């Protein structure tokens, strides 16, 4: 039993529904009680889909439990087949139905429907949503993908995009463009955008482009094993990774690497002098492992930020993330407990957070700007405009969205110079975000309060034995809010290291000189 307030991932059957909703001609019959239908609103409200997701819930009630829930399931299956005439059916149980052990797979099989029926075994009490997407797509491939000849011209499958994915819609457009630039056709895009018939002919492609390992790595491995299709390991997020991706794809396709960089503005935007102020900005990064790792590389190598924290909520991908964190010299935060993430962010006192919608809220509480880089998503993560993360336009989008929450370079200097101007004060937040100033004065204090949360009281006492003399505290308040947290943390660390228990103005500036870069 584990107490949870907010979750990064839903149950695994929601993952299966994300796969089904991205596809056409596939229907999902889920043995589930009333209430589990809430999952529909994820797609109709958050993603603004204009169609109901292709799912039938059996809606069993307490009074059915004693009698015949199995018949209820079979009836629902037949009715769904009659009404929707799908090309294939996936069937499974939600958490409650798993307990009553009706065997949806066996029951559906016994109906003798004239279409493929694929049973999903998604253990609700040990696995989560991302397992659900990955396993469902894998099972679809296993059941439907037939051995076949390769296309005469070189082609690939783009695999991984699903319903409710963070910018999947736009990533597919960008990656398709990159591939077309090298004369490589997309044999299929799956699961999102495909029909069961398209899955059946995945084997015709020469290789696979794996966009989101979280959703399709199992399938990619299986296709490599059974159909001899190699798959790409580079996720093209950022201009460096996009270039590396092009090289990798060219090698797999046996063509010359080529990329039209006319529209790639991110490297120059980053190199131009206005961006100098971005140097060394401390960012904390958290999300699904693929997006978090990609963001960390872009943050360090392409934006010139300092990564001061890195983590992911999907433990399955902890190993490569840990390795990258080590390389960056930070400790990896691997957890699906958002309170733990909040504590880690508070302790790191970053100048910006790159995270999910959960971290956006944490940032709001702590007065730290945040840009969203990963699921879980919110209605705002489905913008009307084209806004990919991948490929050339993706790199441009990353630059814009990550810089937007920050105070601009010259403004930063002005704030430092005229700190006591009553109108132009740092506490108002970035001037281009009129009206919603973060709780700036409290940012540092809130960060410290959180670091001193209930869980830390027993073990973390030593850190807080330093006190600030009033003059030093006043001086600290003159430091602009976006670096105040860092200055406070650094000064305290400096003081502790030297066994100084009282921080004076002197100590503050000694620490500043010590950490100068």
């Amino acid at each position: 039993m584990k107490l949870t307030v907010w979750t990064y991932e839903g149950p695994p059957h929601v993952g299966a529904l994300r796969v089904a909703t991205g596809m056409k001609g596939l229907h999902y019959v889920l043995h589930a009680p009333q209430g589990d239908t809430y999952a529909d609103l994820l797609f109709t409200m958050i993603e603004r889909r204009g169609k109901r997701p292709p799912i039938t819930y059996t809606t069993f009630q307490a009074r059915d439990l004693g009698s015949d829930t199995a018949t209820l399931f079979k009836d629902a299956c037949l009715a769904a087949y009659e009404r929707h005439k799908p090309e294939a059916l996936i069937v499974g149980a939600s958490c409650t139905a798993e307990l009553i052990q009706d065997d949806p797979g066996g029951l559906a099989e016994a109906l003798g429907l004239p279409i493929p029926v694929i049973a999903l075994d998604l253990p609700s009490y040990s696995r989560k949503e991302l397992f659900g997407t990955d396993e469902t797509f894998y099972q679809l491939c296993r059941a439907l993908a037939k051995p076949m000849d390769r296309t005469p011209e070189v082609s690939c499958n783009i695999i991984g995009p699903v319903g409710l994915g963070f910018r999947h819609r736009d990533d597919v457009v960008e990656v398709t463009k990159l591939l077309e630039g090298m004369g490589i056709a997309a044999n299929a895009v799956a699961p999102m955008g495909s029909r069961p018939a398209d899955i059946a002919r995945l084997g015709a492609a020469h290789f696979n482009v794996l966009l989101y390992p979280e959703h399709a790595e199992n399938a990619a491995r299986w296709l490599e094993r059974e159909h001899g299709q190699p798959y790409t390991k580079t996720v093209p997020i950022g201009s460096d990774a996009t270039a590396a991706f092009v090289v990798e794809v060219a090698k797999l396709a046996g063509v010359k690497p080529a990329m039209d960089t006319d529209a790639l503005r991110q490297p120059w935007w980053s190199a131009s002098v206005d961006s100098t102020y971005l140097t060394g900005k401390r960012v904390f990064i958290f999300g699904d492992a693929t997006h978090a790792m990609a963001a960390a590389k872009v943050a360090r190598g392409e934006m010139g930020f300092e990564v001061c924290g890195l983590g992911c909520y999907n433990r399955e991908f902890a190993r490569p993330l840990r390795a990258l964190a080590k390389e960056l010299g930070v400790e990896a935060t691997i957890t699906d407990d958002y309170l733990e993430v909040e504590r880690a962010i508070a302790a790191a006192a970053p100048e910006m957070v790159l995270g999910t919608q959960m971290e956006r809220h944490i940032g709001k509480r702590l007065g730290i700007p945040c840009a969203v880089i990963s699921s879980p998503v919110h209605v705002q993560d489905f913008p009307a405009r084209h806004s990919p993360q991948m490929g050339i336009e993706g790199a441009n989008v990353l630059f814009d969205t990550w810089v937007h929450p920050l105070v601009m370079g010259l403004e930063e200097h002005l704030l430092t110079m005229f700190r006591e101007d009553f109108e132009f004060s740092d506490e108002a937040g970035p001037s281009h975000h009129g009206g919603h100033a973060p709780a700036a004065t409290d940012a540092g204090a809130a960060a410290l309060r959180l670091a001193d949360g209930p869980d830390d009281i027993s073990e973390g006492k030593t850190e807080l034995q330093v006190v600030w003399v009033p003059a030093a505290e006043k001086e600290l308040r003159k430091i602009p809010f976006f670096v105040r947290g860092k200055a406070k943390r650094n000064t305290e660390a400096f003081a502790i290291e030297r066994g100084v228990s009282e921080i004076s103005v002197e100590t503050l500036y000694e620490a500043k000189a010590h950490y100068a870069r």
Partner: protein
Amino acid sequence: MNDQAIIGCTNTPVIKERGQHEVFCGLTGIIWLHRKMQDAFFLVVGSRTCAHLLQSAAGVMIFAEPRFGTAILEEGDLAGLKDANDELDREVGRLLERRPDIRQLFLVGSCPSEVIKLDLARAAERLSSAHAPHVRVLNYSGSGIETTFTEGEDACLAAMVPGLAKTDASNLLLVGALPDVVEDQARTLLADLGIETVQVLPGRRADQDPQVGPNTRYALLQPFLGETAAELDKRGAKRVAAPFPFGEEGTTLWLRAVAAAFGIGDATVDRVTAAPRARARKAVAAAAETLAGQSIFFMPDSQLELPLARFLTRECGMEAIEVGVPFLHSKIMADELALLPGGPRIAEGQDVDLQLDRVRADRPDITVCGLGLANPLEREGLTTKWAIELVFTPVHFYEQAGDLAALFARPLRRKAILEGTA
């Protein structure tokens, strides 16, 4: 007035359907209950699905550390119930230690906890004695196999009734969790009528919970509180039968019935309500311009469908085509059914595909439905109103009558603006 108008929909045959229900389960009520009861914590004992439902249904995440959470059952908990109980005790202990401000803890049963027969009533007893007197631990089920959406609030309030202090004094008990501002308006009206002792279930804090006894009269504020009413009856309290206080007419009839139960005559009611009634009529009239003559179809959702259909037809001039309800409590709905002008189909339960077929055949001007159905219907060219807003927005009593009508008028007005016909 002809016979049909007098009996309204009392004798309308009810379509009973059984199939896929596109409705939330009772856990959803936690989203408003935890804001209403400021020293209560709601601990769902369930699965990851329950936690995800609460998070998704809340729509905007309430990050001001919410007073609810889910104890997620894991494989080990399913293997042995003894272990599950130990785990629960441990999690509750941790929670109460971290939140010393919590005075009432609700253990909320879910589909999985019901199926594995985790006895939360015994757990609540055990934990109550462990944490008494500081914390009172209660339990109820919000599971989807037993409760539909607003029935969760009913189950919660019903669980509170046996623990209410006994009184022999005469008092009025208002039942239902309303926004504080609306509750205060109701209290002012009742005080003006001369009813002295007015208490509310649930109280805003544990020490404000009402007392109940044989001289208690209670009036339901919401139409979904059948179990709570039954529990109050067991304590000897007497229900004031009335339509529900939606709209000018509903509010007036509700106040009249309550006043009559306390021997207060119509003249007093008229005097006290004249000004707010006029205001309410004026505010409703503004929205009724948009609503008059428009047809409406209710998918079953919050259990508010019958009173709302009554309000929209009688006060706003709308025409109801079908009024779907999750379940029909004929006693509590008797006054509403009698007032609702004959004509609409009344449907209980749901087979969502069949009901959507009827929506498409009828092509109503506005369809009231859940969040999962609204956008798909809009894409088919039908105008919708999300039902969930009706339980999250202040809509009761005079001062909100105009807002209630406006909730229905807004989608129609918006559509007209976007189509350039406004």
